[in-house]
């Protein structure tokens, strides 16, 4: 507004309009766009004759259902839940098989090390540190990814994702952000760094920045295994079938919470640091296409699964070795690991975690994938349980280290809300070109994660629930 002279008649009339706009119930700008579209639809209907109208009608009917006010959201939730359920239910068995196989090989490795009479520390670093972490990363991450990514790519190729953006546009408008942000969030499900780069599709710099700063609240592929593992263990039911359903429900709930936080943060940013009104957008809904199954598998397995897994392995190997060393280097009679965890413990306890969990999250900064493996390393290296050879033991280990439902719940919440990984932060810096905004991208989620977990933990402690 500064460009206008305060005496300018245009500014006066602009301010007059303000009162008219505010007195109207529905935003008039939206109404104008809706009117134009309604009119063009009627016009086109009158002048265009489709000879293939039967087929188009069929597709139109599906579209009417998918983007309808009544069925749009429930369908979306159902689909999201179904994808998670398929992932959890389908990943269980292969995960266990992989774990058995890889941990059996660990025993063989140990025998070889004993055979050549290698020093204990070498066996520790390489086998108990590096190999065991790697085995964990692969056993826990590979099967869910190999199921989740093809399903997701399938929906993408089908043309469903832009329709999700269409459904959510209204909500983004209310949060004063751009509807296209939804597409960047969809990318974020795969990888937040990719989601942040994809924010380039948003024209307005203000809205792009909002999309970049909030992308972290959709759990990326590196964090899904953490959520899946913990919810599979702690959301218990008597029957295997309903157990996986419940676990899927839990994850759906967490994702919804992440989306709610996205809206809340977008809205607060629009009211404070990034003031402004949302811009209208034209989103072309692509026709439904039959996805090419071969292409779906190739892209999801080669481009996504293998890519993410490779990244995890590259980070997990040194992290595993480092954790083992920290756990086995003693100052006095306390290991460095236990000492550091002890320092973190008071803060961690206040937010319903423990020192080791918080440390695993800190060590997981390079890649969130390694949080659970590092955490297990910590527990196994310091606790009584030193032998660990099955996925089912996970719960035993956690319970032995004092986990309650609150620990599990808050760990999942913290995983969902905490700071972005190093790659994501780097992408933020590259895209915004600003240290200040990169720092905001770090501090906003961190503050939210601590606050939310703190409140839940304190309420639970106060009520004596945990």
């Amino acid at each position, binding site marked *: *507004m500064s*460009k*206008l002279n305060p005496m*300018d*008649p*245009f*500014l006066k*009339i*602009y301010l*007059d*309009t*303000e009162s*008219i*706009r505010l007195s*109207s119930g*529905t935003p*008039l*700008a939206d*109404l*104008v*766009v*809706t*009117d*134009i*579209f309604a*009119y*063009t*639809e009627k*016009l*086109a*209907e*009158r*002048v*265009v*004759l*489709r*000879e*293939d109208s039967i087929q188009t009608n069929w597709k139109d009917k599906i579209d009417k259902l998918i983007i309808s006010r009544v069925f749009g959201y429930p369908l979306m939730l159902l689909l999201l839940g179904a994808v998670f359920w398929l992932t959890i239910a389908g990943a269980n068995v292969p995960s266990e098989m992989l774990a058995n196989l890889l941990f059996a090989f660990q025993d063989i490795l140990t025998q070889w090390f004993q055979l050549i009479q290698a020093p204990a520390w070498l066996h520790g670093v390489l086998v108990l540190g590096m190999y065991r972490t790697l085995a964990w990363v692969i056993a826990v991450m590979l099967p869910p990814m190999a199921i989740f990514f093809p399903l997701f790519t399938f929906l993408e190729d089908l043309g469903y994702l832009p329709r999700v953006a269409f459904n959510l546009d209204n909500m983004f408008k209310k949060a004063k952000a751009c509807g296209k942000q939804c597409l960047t969030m969809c990318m974020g499900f795969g990888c937040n760094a990719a989601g942040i780069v994809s924010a380039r599709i948003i*024209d*307005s710099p203000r809205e792009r920045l909002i999309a970049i700063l909030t992308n972290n609240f959709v759990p990326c592929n590196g964090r899904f295994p953490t959520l899946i593992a913990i919810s599979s263990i702690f959301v218990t039911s008597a029957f295997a079938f309903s157990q996986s359903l419940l676990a899927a429900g839990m994850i759906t709930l967490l994702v919804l919470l992440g989306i709610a936080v996205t809206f809340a943060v977008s809205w607060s940013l629009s009211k404070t640091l990034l003031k402004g*009104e949302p*811009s*209208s*957008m*034209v989103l*072309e809904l692509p026709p439904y296409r039959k996805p090419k199954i071969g292409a779906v598998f190739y892209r999801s397995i080669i481009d996504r699964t293998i890519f993410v897994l490779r990244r995890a392995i590259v980070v997990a190997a040194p992290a595993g070795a480092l954790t083992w060393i920290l756990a086995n280097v003693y100052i006095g009679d306390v290991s460095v690991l236990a000492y550091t965890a002890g320092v973190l413990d008071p803060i961690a306890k206040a937010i319903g975690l423990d020192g080791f969990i918080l440390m695993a999250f800190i060590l997981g900064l390079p890649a969130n994938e390694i949080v659970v493996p590092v955490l297990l390393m910590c527990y196994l290296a310091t606790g009584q349980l030193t032998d660990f050879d099955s996925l089912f033991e996970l719960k035993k280990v956690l319970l032995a280290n004092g986990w309650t439902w609150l620990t599990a719940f808050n760990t999942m919440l913290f995983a969902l809300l905490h700071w972005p990984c190093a790659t994501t932060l780097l992408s933020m810096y590259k895209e915004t070109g600003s240290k200040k905004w990169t720092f905001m991208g770090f501090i906003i989620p961190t503050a939210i994660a601590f606050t939310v977990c703190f409140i839940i933990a304190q309420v639970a402690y106060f009520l004596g629930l945990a």
Partner: protein
Amino acid sequence: MKLKSGDSSNALKNPGRVMREQFGIRTTGEQYVIALAGNPNVGKSTVFNALTGLHQHTGNWPGKTVDNAQGNYSYRNKSFLLVDLPGTYSLLAHSVEEEIARDFICFGQPDAIIVVLDATSLERNLNLALQVMEISSKVIVCVNLIDEARKKKLSINFNELQKELGVPIIPTAARNGEGLQELQSAVYTMAVEQKKTWPKQVPYSEEVERAINALLPKINELDLARVVNPKWLALRLLDSDISFIETISRYAAAQKQTTVALQDQWGELTL
């Protein structure tokens, strides 16, 4: 600025010509400026190239990096300057491209605006045509890609469309040169012979119309009818489009200056 006496009468009639220079457009003598608008990927550039042949050069808009092609062509001994605007879905100006297209249509005072539509998705494309028709009455709608529409077994009732829109409708398949003669002829009729059209306006819902009517008296006080369609300005105000309000304030000031300058000169000439 020096004007030849032959030009000044024309310029006084249409001071917007002087404003065109702000868009990097320089016409030589009696040249008609034709704007080419349309959604992305509707064959706008094909129409452009088909009309201008090889006589095209590209020019930049002031301060923008978006390239815009300008090219000349002659028809019935008249010279036309065709300006290819960036492809946009609307003129509500939420991107640089939309802002450029909107400002040129609004303030560049083209002698005719060709809006190119994709015949295979008229519904989406018509939206831009209607928005342009809100700003200007010098609109020719070119329904391109009719060859593809035929392939997709779509038939379009062009007579009905012309009746509904109230502006000339020219079906083309620019790739094969189909309909280009008719397009040139329609441009000639509009730009040279100044034939009037009666573009139909979008019927807005009651609430919007009420707001427009509340604003119109205030807008009319500003005496802008020659710069911009008051109803369109009212709509932009309702859209709280501050960037447009700033732009129009700038152009209104520029226009006032030019008109005064030209009137002075005219006065000297008649003395």
